[in-house]
């Protein structure tokens, strides 16, 4: 957003705002983080020696709905950014609430799935599938949780008298980048864990 960098003090070389550039480079770093987690999962895919195997306990319909929920949260997020950019604060707040709710629902599905796996005897130490699955989806879940906190603080910030200030569009847009990235990572994880068989 070139606008944010117009005051003389922050004249930038490329005309982009530092905070957005920081988010994009951070997302590049996160690609490597989730890339390593996914590689470990792929290396151990089908190598579990004991205990419940993925084929037996993965519930595709349930996770497909939670994937759909996260996908829709991306749509509400982009509409919230649209609202912030075009000054339609009602739309922005509404969509922020929507994204937060969808995000929490997704987390709810995940907590349920983790507990269900616990009941059928799959936990961290059971086998290779348990270890890699819980670590990968767990870290993704943590990122979704942090995203929900991030969006909630934006929502609360927009409730204040001064709202999110003149850089509102930038704050919401940067939060949107983070949220979309977390959704995109889930798209990859969903395909590799649930859709591709052993």
């Amino acid at each position: 957003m070139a606008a944010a960098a117009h005051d003389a003090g922050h004249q930038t070389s490329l005309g982009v705002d530092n905070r957005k550039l920081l988010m994009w480079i951070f997302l590049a770093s996160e690609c490597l983080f989730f890339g390593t987690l996914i590689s470990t999962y792929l290396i151990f895919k089908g190598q579990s020696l004991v205990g419940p195997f993925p084929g037996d306990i993965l519930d595709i319909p349930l996770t497909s709905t939670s994937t759909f929920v996260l996908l829709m949260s991306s749509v509400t997020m982009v509409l919230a950014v649209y609202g912030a950019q075009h000054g339609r604060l009602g739309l922005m707040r509404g969509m922020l609430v929507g994204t937060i709710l969808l995000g929490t629902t997704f987390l709810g599905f995940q907590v349920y799935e983790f507990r269900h796996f616990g009941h059928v005897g799959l936990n961290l130490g059971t086998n290779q599938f348990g270890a890699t699955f819980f670590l990968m989806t767990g870290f993704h879940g943590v990122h979704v949780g942090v995203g929900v906190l991030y969006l909630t603080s934006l929502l609360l910030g927009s409730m204040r008298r001064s709202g999110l200030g003149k850089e509102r569009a930038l704050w919401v847009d940067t939060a949107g980048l983070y949220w979309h990235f977390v959704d995109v990572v889930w798209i990859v994880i969903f395909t590799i864990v649930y859709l591709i068989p052993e």
Partner: protein
Amino acid sequence: MSHEASAGHGHEEHPPTTIRQYVLIGIILAVITAVELVVSYYPPGSLEIPLLLGLSAVKFGIVAALFMHLKFEHKIMTRMFLIGIVLAASLMIAVFALFTHDDTDNRVLPDREAITAGAGGH
């Protein structure tokens, strides 16, 4: 849709996509997910994995280009993200190849046959 967000020229510059277009993109993504599910339930033989990976790559591209406005941002953003994506993808392929390479596969999994034979696993 092709105008370039040039360096700070006054009023705020944002992508021209409208709300209806965003919702439409959302629907397309949902449809692709549905197609993926169908492919997963009725796997077309060896085509399954490339198809599934291809579809998720398409979704990845759509979200990155249109929802994350990469298409309208300064090209430095795309370059930064591409560095991460390309490096992560190539390292994943390299490490995966190293672990499943035939003549290095001297990994001896302890009493694997006995257990998996019993549990009817992979």
